[in-house]
């Protein structure tokens, strides 16, 4: 085995770890860099939630699916945690675990029939799942609170630390975000990720080398939905109020848009997309009527003129500006992120 093939496996661990640590250090220092300005902290927390959603949805995408039930599973986590708090008095710590378990269980049961469908049929079937989940929250008014929603879902306390403080909640949301991104990143880097992508690339071939495609599809869907449910739990305790409308198809669609704009081929895509678009959306607020129009224009421009998404920018620059030799990963992401037909 030569030197180069080793890098394929280990991928320069020291550098990667260093980058991760630097990123986390920056995030830790961020509240103090902005002087704990509360509105900016709020935006940061919203960005974290969006990253969580987009990244977990991207995990499903690595098998070649896009789940429109994702917001529904976020809702399952939010409602589980909220009901734990409101009915049983158990704080978020229990709720987030229970939410993840309930979300995972339902995702597993639902995904078995769901995985029979493909492509656009899957899109609609998962939409149906998400819509039914949302409607069930609305339908059982006595238990789930119906359309009026649930109120006063208070943030937890931990010893002297009260997470009603926004800086504290920032760190809580950050921990979840780092956890989710780390899990998805690791999964994607290792053999599990190869298996996922191999199913994405050629399901028939992968099943003929002994990969039980259905099992992995169900597993990925379950993990991603559980992660979305955890996000939902934190979301509920942050906003202190939830109603079924927060978990409708638009939430899933925005997560999808974040992925597409960020880039489809690495875990950096959803992160970049969520950060970029959430901030853009926030900056556009004063434009009043034109806000959504401009947002749409930016979306179209990105898709048409930057097909690999934001994640491909550094590689494009390296490739064209400094004329560095192409490495294989570059080619992969520039190939339009698995866009068929770009040869």
């Amino acid at each position, binding site marked *: 085995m030569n030197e180069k093939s080793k890098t394929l496996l280990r991928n320069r661990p020291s550098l990667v770890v260093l980058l991760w640590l630097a990123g986390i250090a920056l995030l830790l220092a961020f509240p103090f860099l902005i002087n704990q300005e509360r509105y900016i902290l709020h935006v940061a927390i919203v960005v974290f939630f969006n990253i969580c959603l987009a990244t977990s949805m991207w995990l499903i995408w690595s098998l070649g699916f896009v789940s429109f039930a994702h917001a529904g599973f976020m809702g399952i986590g939010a409602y589980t945690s909220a009901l734990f708090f409101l009915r049983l008095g158990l704080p978020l710590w229990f709720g987030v675990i229970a939410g993840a378990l309930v979300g995972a269980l339902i995702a597993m049961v639902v995904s078995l029939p769901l995985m029979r469908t493909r492509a656009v049929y899957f899109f609609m079937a998962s939409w149906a799942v998400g819509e*039914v989940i949302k409607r069930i929250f609305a339908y059982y008014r006595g238990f789930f609170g119906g359309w009026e929603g649930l109120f006063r879902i208070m943030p937890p306390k931990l010893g002297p630390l009260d997470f009603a403080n926004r800086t504290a909640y920032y760190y809580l949301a950050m921990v979840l975000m780092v956890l989710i991104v780390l899990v998805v990143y690791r999964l994607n880097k290792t053999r599990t990720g190869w298996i996922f992508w191999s199913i994405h690339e050629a399901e028939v071939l992968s099943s003929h080398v002994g990969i039980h495609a259905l099992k992995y599809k169900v597993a990925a869907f379950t993990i991603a939905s559980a992660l979305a449910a955890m996000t939902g739990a934190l979301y509920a305790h942050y906003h202190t109020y939830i109603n079924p409308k927060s978990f409708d198809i638009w939430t899933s669609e925005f997560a999808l848009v974040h992925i597409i704009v960020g880039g489809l081929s690495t875990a950096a895509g959803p992160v970049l997309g969520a950060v970029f678009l959430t901030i853009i959306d926030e900056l556009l607020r004063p434009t009043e009527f034109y806000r959504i129009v401009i947002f749409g224009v930016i979306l179209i421009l990105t898709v048409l003129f930057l097909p690999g998404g934001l994640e491909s920018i550094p590689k494009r620059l390296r490739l064209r500006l400094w004329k560095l030799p192409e490495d294989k990963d570059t080619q992969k992401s520039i190939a339009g992120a698995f866009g068929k037909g770009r040869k």
Partner: protein
Amino acid sequence: MTLQLTVQMAITGVTLGLIYGLIAIGLTLIFGVMRIIQYAHGEIYMLGAYFLYYWFDKWHLPYWAGFVMSAVVIFFFGAGLQLLLFRPLHGKDMLYSLAVSLALIFIISSAGIIAFGAVIRGISSFVTGQIRIAGAEWTFERMVIAGISLVLIIALWFLLQRTKIGLAMRAVAEDPETSSLQGINNRRIHWVAMGLGSALSAMAGCLMGTLMFIVPSMGFLATIKAFMIVIMGGLGSVPGALVGGFVIGFIDSFLTTLATSELAYIIGFVTIFVILVFKPSGLFGQAWE
């Protein structure tokens, strides 16, 4: 449940089914031929309705001419969208077309508020009155609109089955590579199909705008219905759209009247889910990877 009520529910179900079917066939055509997700279908429908509103209610020009003009104008609008936005995405993952059409929803519906105002409008009916048969009300307007829907659906089916361009469309739908080898201009077929699908959608918008009301945000509701129907019936299948329309129409009519509208909505989605689980390509659909 009296006979009278049953008849009334059945009439409502049939007319709704036909109208839903009309909203959906444009989408099934675009889907079938191009294999892109045109998520902004409802927005096109909204534009069609607004065109007729200005034509008929503001400028006081004849109704049926406006109906045709709306279809023509939206035909070119749809074709333009295809040439400008969707063609560069051809052959790429369907997520890209989904993203672009999502952006179109944002742009068209918000620009609609700016251009048309957020006020709710209505197009005056071209025919009024009703007749009472078997204890149920048969509204002329609904009957005429359902009739037009049926005619348009059959016309599209004829176009696809019997004409040269229809044949070319089906060829492109089934195997784009072979069809281009046989000298079919795929690009042209694509924009024609997109234009035609949009025009059908605009006509549906005109009819629904007359029957109901129009407002810039009405598009997404149509998109939901169209997607439910098209996927249930199977992509690219005209009979599928018709059957899907009837299924949703009857669920809406019977369940809303006998139970609640909330239940009707839930059952509608559950039905789709169950159909897709047992027939993963819809009722009449072709497989699509």
